[in-house]
């Protein structure tokens, strides 16, 4: 039986749904209608594809990582080069799709949340491209960790509003963005950056990110004797780059998939490994696994990578975990930093700290699969934004 989640209520098994204040219900209904209409409309699709090609630079390369494969000793590793997307990560695939929907709906004001700043930059970029007002909510703590991205967003004409409540990270920035939307539903479009939030966001964001896996599918045939990869690996915070890579292959049962969460200081310390250690609850409008205390209050997540520092996860990942379709594992801050160094040194590619979690997992993954396996890793973002953090950990990342 082929995979057909979500159902019409936005449920992936028991997960997903729309747990939001009543004010947002008409907006979500209108959004769903606009999205479904647009996605079936050839002129919308042409515009979307044209922007992906001429503005983002798609298709992004699928690069054979020869020296990395050699260093790990098993498997043929390919990197899907989302780091080459305009603005430095896969995030822009989604923001282009959503801003076109926003324009179709007649919205004039764009808001977004951001953790690492990549989604904020991708939103500010595309808002500038279309001349729309753009407000980005970002945790005050993240603003200091990702000062470079804050500057980029401001240069792109966006207003960056610091969130000073709670943990001052992505979770609280998301709360503030939702509150803004509740207060300004008529003119405002909320561009959510991951496969999280109420229905139809997880499905819509998946649709816009699926271009990643679709390109891999056609590119791999030219580069390898195999029609589909044996193994897919991607990091998971909210989970949009992972879903984008996985979804087009979900019905190919022979394709093994690994989602890599952030184990932070280790699973017994502070971490962001929601699927590995969390339990079921509702956060930001959807039912999913999440990190919470015994009284149902949301816990603070931790990861060295601001983009994975989130106590929830996209509802579809919860479902893919439960049905056993994707294996979820985790890597620590330390392992991610070492992986930054590994990929830089072997392939000349400095990955984002988020991406580095997927690279770090390869050591385990290659030992679980056949020697000649074709492994595609989503190289979801580039590491320039993380240079400050990387420099603060010179003892791990410098080998000479």
């Amino acid at each position, binding site marked *: 039986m082929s995979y057909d989640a979500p159902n019409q209520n936005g449920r992936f098994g028991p997960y997903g749904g729309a747990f939001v204040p009543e*004010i947002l*219900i008409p907006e979500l209904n209108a959004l769903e209608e606009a999205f479904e209409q647009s996605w079936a409309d050839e002129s919308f699709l042409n515009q979307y594809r044209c922007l992906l090609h001429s503005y983002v630079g798609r298709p992004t390369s699928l690069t054979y990582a020869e020296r990395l494969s050699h260093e790990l000793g098993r498997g043929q590793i390919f990197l899907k080069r989302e780091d080459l997307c305009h603005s430095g990560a896969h995030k822009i695939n989604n923001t282009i799709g959503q801003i076109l929907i926003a324009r179709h709906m007649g919205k004039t004001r764009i808001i977004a949340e951001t953790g690492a700043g990549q989604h904020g930059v991708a939103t500010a970029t595309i808002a500038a491209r279309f001349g729309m007002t753009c407000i980005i909510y970002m945790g005050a703590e993240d603003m200091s960790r990702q000062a470079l991205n804050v500057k980029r967003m401001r240069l792109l004409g966006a207003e960056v509003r610091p969130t000073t409540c709670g943990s001052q990270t992505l979770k609280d920035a998301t709360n503030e963005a939702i509150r803004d939307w509740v207060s300004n539903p008529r003119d405002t479009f909320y561009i959510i950056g991951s496969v999280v939030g109420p229905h139809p966001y997880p499905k819509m964001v998946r649709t816009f990110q699926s271009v990643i896996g679709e390109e891999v599918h056609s590119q791999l045939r030219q580069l390898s004797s195999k029609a589909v990869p044996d193994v897919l690996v991607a990091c998971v915070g909210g989970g949009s780059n992972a879903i984008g890579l996985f979804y087009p292959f979900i019905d190919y049962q022979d394709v093994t998939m690994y989602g890599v969460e952030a184990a932070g200081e280790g699973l017994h310390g502070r971490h962001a490994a929601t699927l590995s250690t969390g339990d079921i609850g*509702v*956060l930001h409008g959807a039912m999913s696994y999440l990190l919470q205390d015994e*009284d149902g209050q949301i816990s603070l997540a931790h990861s060295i990578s601001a983009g994975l520092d989130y106590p929830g996860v996209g509802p579809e990942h919860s479902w893919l975990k439960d049905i056993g379709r994707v294996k979820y594992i985790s890597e620590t801050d330390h392992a991610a930093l070492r992986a930054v160094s590994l990929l830089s040194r072997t392939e000349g590619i400095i990955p984002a700290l988020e991406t580095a979690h997927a690279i770090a997992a390869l050591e385990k993954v290659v030992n679980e699969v056949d020697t000649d396996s074709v492994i595609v890793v989503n190289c979801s973002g580039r590491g320039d934004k993380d240079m400050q953090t990387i420099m603060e950990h010179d003892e791990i990342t410098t080998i000479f």
Partner: protein
Amino acid sequence: MKSRLSSKLNSLKKRDKKAMGIFLTSGFPTPSDTNQLLKAVDQGGADFIELGMPHSDPLAEGLPIQYSSATALRSGTTMKTTLEAVNNFRQTSDTPLLLMGYINPILKFGIAKFCEHASACGADGLIIPDLPPQEASLLQEEAHKNGLGLVFLVAPNTSTERMKQIDQLSDGFVYCISITGLTGSELRGQQNSINSYLEHARQVITHNHLMVGFGIQSSADASQLSKHTDGFIVGSAVIKEIERLWASQEIPLPDRQEALVEFVRSLKQS
């Protein structure tokens, strides 16, 4: 719904009186204050009370209730202390009390267990702002089995058809959010447009009483906005008053309580 809330609202309506609902955050400023604060708003003339179950991520709240929720959690408020407060209150008062909060702490507590405990402690109903009608089946059966009413909300952007559905689902009253915004929002001279929305809601919602809330700060706001409703709810303004009074620790406790009684009483005058 247990007869307590309905009979209170019916009897007020018969006497052509508007009902006043008062919101308090359980455990704000500390769990040990809640019993006295409940008594004070009861004495001040609340016709029903909404006791907020604080949550770490209160999406629909403006700053005052965000602040009161965070303070309550920091000072040790849990679902258990909230239910104990309800139980204590019920020993001495028959004023209807609804628990208001977000779905996640209820899920974590266990839906069946939560409904049993809430009912046994003497709560009359539940208001869950992030549980719109299409997700309500999660809670509905257990709530009804335990005699707890579920109150749903409508907003200025809710369609007529949906208002009718919500009227069918809601028990006791329908909560009309005055403006598209957060709790404690400024009404900013929108009273006229709010009133025409409420007048429309009044025509559409025929099974339930109507209560208006969000942004009501004074008796003047209350009387203006309850022209077309059966009553009004004040939350953030009460929280701000408690915050102000409890910041003045040099004022003896009984005087602060009395000041709160007076504040609540003043909301109803007119």
